[in-house]
């Protein structure tokens, strides 16, 4: 009989605490019923019990049959996971290769071309680790979403053919742009939080290509605010995906995020310069301030160009938001589907 108890204990090891004892009792009672049925009532020998347990199957399999299938990322969210993963991986690879392609572009001699090819090969492990990290983070986020049993795509709800968007509507709702925006935001979050030393340019000095990281130490001050803004953006896009439309309240929520954007743009231009030579990142690439002397002079020029671009962005965001808010505030107005 000890064999039966060992079997039941082993099944219990693979069962959740909550239902363990109850299921174990039921299996015990079943085994005894089976033995009675097969060999008649009375004492048992180990051979009979062994035969019976073999028939029941491995304890792990028996325990598994009592539990619903478990997923790290379930079928409901798998589609969203794959779409966002694809975009994140493309964006991370893109950001990494952008710098590389610049060096190919400017390699006018064969030697310079070979050097930049070597650069590309040498940096592949870095790209690989970036991709694996991005994949890991995304899996983790989706596993948490799965645990909390939320779904990116809305549950089937009441639907009527009248709800189909009219063909004249310029831009019917498309989830693709939401997925792209979430994907790019996640990629930006990963790149700037985990690989800030990647942001920079390639420079051909003497006989060598050198990668010069250009994010200033003060960028770290701005990062929490950027992270918050991006997290809110991902939240908003997830809600839009769930509702499958830009409802009025979601449009207002998007407008409420704009002051955030304006403040960030203003901060970069007037208060916290994000470009500069960061000794830590330079050290990461095996450089010192003297190695990049020329860029100290070039930096103000690059910064000015960036600031000009950001000021234009500031004005564009401000004007388009005012127009959108004006349209929203006007009652009974058909709104175009603006997806930014």
């Amino acid at each position, binding site marked *: 009989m000890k064999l039966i108890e060992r079997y039941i204990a082993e099944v219990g090891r693979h069962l959740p605490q909550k*239902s363990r004892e109850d*299921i174990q*009792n*039921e*299996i015990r*009672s*079943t085994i*005894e*019923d*089976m033995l*009675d*049925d097969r060999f008649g*009532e009375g004492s048992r020998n180990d051979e009979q019990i062994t035969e019976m347990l073999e028939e*029941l*199957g491995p304890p792990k*399999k*028996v325990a598994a*049959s*009592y539990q619903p299938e478990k997923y790290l990322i379930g079928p409901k969210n798998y589609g969203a996971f794959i779409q966002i993963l694809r975009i994140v991986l493309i964006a991370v690879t893109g950001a990494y290769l952008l710098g590389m392609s610049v060096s190919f572009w400017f390699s006018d001699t064969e030697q310079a071309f070979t050097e930049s090819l070597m650069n590309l090969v040498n940096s592949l492990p870095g790209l690989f680790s970036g991709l694996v990290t991005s994949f890991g983070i995304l899996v983790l986020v989706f596993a948490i979403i799965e645990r909390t049993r939320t779904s990116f795509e809305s549950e089937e709800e009441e639907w009527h053919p009248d709800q189909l968007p009219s063909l004249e509507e310029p831009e019917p709702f498309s989830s693709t742009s939401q997925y792209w925006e979430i994907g790019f935001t996640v990629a930006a979050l990963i790149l700037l939080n985990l690989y800030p030393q990647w942001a920079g340019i390639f420079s051909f000095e003497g006989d060598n290509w050198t990668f010069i990281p250009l994010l200033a130490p003060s960028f770290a001050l701005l990062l929490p605010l950027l992270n918050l803004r991006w997290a809110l953006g991902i939240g908003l896009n997830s809600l839009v995906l769930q509702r499958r439309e830009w409802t009025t309240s979601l449009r207002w929520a998007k407008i409420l995020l704009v002051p955030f954007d304006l403040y960030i743009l203003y901060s970069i231009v007037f208060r916290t310069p994000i470009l500069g030579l960061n000794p830590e990142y330079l050290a990461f690439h095996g450089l010192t301030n003297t190695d990049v002397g020329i860029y100290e002079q070039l930096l103000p020029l690059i910064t000015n160009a960036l600031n000009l671009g950001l000021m234009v962005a500031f004005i564009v965001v401000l004007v388009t938001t005012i127009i959108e808010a004006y349209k929203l505030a006007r009652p009974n107005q058909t709104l175009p589907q603006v997806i930014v």
Partner: protein
Amino acid sequence: MTNADNLSLELRRGVIILAVLSQLKEAQYGYSLLKLMAEKGFEIEQGTLYPLLRRLEERGLLQSEWQVDGSRPRRYYSISPGGEKALPKLKAEWKALVKVIDGLLA
């Protein structure tokens, strides 16, 4: 297991619920239900039946209680009011389905 075996398993899976509900007007414990169904020609593995009984109870189609009047404690399952309500619908669905499929296979 061959492909054909898998297909018949899938086919049977759908009707097990109907078969089980139909046999639980009188309370049965797992093993007695297994024997009862086998006698009537519906073979079912215990690895399938026992977890199914629990799931049907969780869904409110069955109810159960432990009884200790026999030689050992046993968990008896019987159809619940929710199951009573669902059974005629399932039966009607099954009959209609058999008719249609027979027509298709003829």
